[in-house]
């Protein structure tokens, strides 16, 4: 199954050497050292010489026309979110390089580095390095990092964008230990406190299941960072979001369908 997807992707990416980074239900992520249109001698925005290709393969169980429309729409809306994020200086996100919306291809800047164990520097992998060693798992460095991540999410919400799939593997730490949010595939614009609260709840659950040993501290620090970016007038907004967050925690991510 995934072999045919890769063959499919390669037919749209002729002469591009790609390696699979990860695969989700919706898309497959490749990495390459080839920029689509800049010669390799020229350094781009970051010094990294790697690029990410997100490919949404056709879904054969859907009607062809509908499938093409959905793929196109989703690719474009993800790119639009990245465009919006360029204008929000406070939020770190990969920059857009190119889109081929018809074929469901999105080219982005590569973020992150290899940890000592060769894994990519996602928050998840970074935190997992310290597993079972409390002296390392709860240091000031970890605390600062999680607060920085919290601030990123706070800034995102302040600008009325929700991520839609916040997990510790969708947060990447860069070499200069800045936190980047990635994967805006489920992201959207929203002014609703409900959506923001759900975002926080999804993250809380993700931390709970991915980092169960220290989830209490981790969530506390994330929320501290999150709250710290709301100041002055925005504090009322923060209170409303946090109140809603409590509600969501009691009932879960989905609203009751009864009545």
């Amino acid at each position, binding site marked *: 199954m995934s072999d045919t997807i890769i063959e499919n992707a390669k037919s749209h990416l002729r002469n591009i050497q790609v390696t699979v980074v990860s695969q989700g239900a919706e898309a497959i992520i490749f990495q390459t050292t080839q920029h689509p249109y800049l*010669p390799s001698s020229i350094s781009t925005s970051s010094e990294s010489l790697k690029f990410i290709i997100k490919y949404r393969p056709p879904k054969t169980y859907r009607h062809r026309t509908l499938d093409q429309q959905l793929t196109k729409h989703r690719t474009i809306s993800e790119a*639009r979110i990245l465009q919006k994020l360029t204008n929000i200086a406070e939020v770190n996100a990969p920059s*857009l390089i190119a889109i081929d919306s018809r074929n469901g291809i999105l080219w982005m800047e590569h973020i992150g580095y290899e940890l000592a164990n060769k894994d990519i520097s996602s928050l998840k992998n970074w935190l997992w390095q310290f597993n079972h060693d409390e002296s390392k798992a709860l240091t000031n460095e970890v605390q600062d990092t999680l607060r920085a991540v919290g601030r990123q999410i706070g800034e995102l919400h302040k600008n009325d964008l929700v991520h839609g799939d916040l997990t510790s593997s969708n947060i990447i730490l860069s070499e200069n230990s800045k936190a980047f949010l990635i994967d805006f595939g489920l992201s959207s614009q929203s002014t609703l406190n409900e959506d923001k609260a759900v975002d926080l709840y999804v993250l809380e659950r993700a931390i709970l299941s991915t980092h169960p040993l220290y989830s209490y501290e981790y969530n506390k620090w994330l929320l501290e960072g999150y709250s710290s970016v709301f100041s002055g007038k925005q504090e009322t907004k923060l209170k409303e979001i946090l109140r809603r967050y409590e509600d969501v925690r009691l009932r879960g991510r989905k609203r009751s369908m009864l009545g």
Partner: protein
Amino acid sequence: MTQIKFPQFPQFINIHRFTNVLNSSEIKENLIKGNKDYDFAFINTKLIFSQSQLYSAIYRSLLELNNNNLRTKNIHSEILFCLSPINNIMEALKNFGIQNSTFDFIVIKISDNLEIDYNLNIINGEEIKFEQINNELIKFVDLKKLYKIYKLGTFKEVLNNEDILLINQKIINSIQLRGQ
């Protein structure tokens, strides 16, 4: 001349840079007439901020060509259209193409052949090196107009490195997302 090729596409991209051109109005007339000897993209250097801006637009136009999805009559006008952040073709040609008074421009020829099989005697001007270095092009830019066309926000006359990267990224976003 600089010849480049994007790995995904079979076409060759030849880039020439001309300055001190005296016959822009003649070139423009022939372009309007659809004279076959003038089948090139003539791009006003004043709105080319960076190499990635230009290449990003060429990339998109080649993508449209290879997807059989050209919106304008040929690949060369498509490049001008792809440079533009708005969907109006006439406006794009006006802004990014040449005017009677344009004396400095970039000429692009998309070709299936490696060899040069055309001549540029039609241009009465001086061919100079097309700078491959990103920051080289900024010197020739009409920043005010660039800000206006790409809606880059509050005008800033002096740009530091960070500003340049940000402007560049905003332009690439606009080019890639136009009409999408």
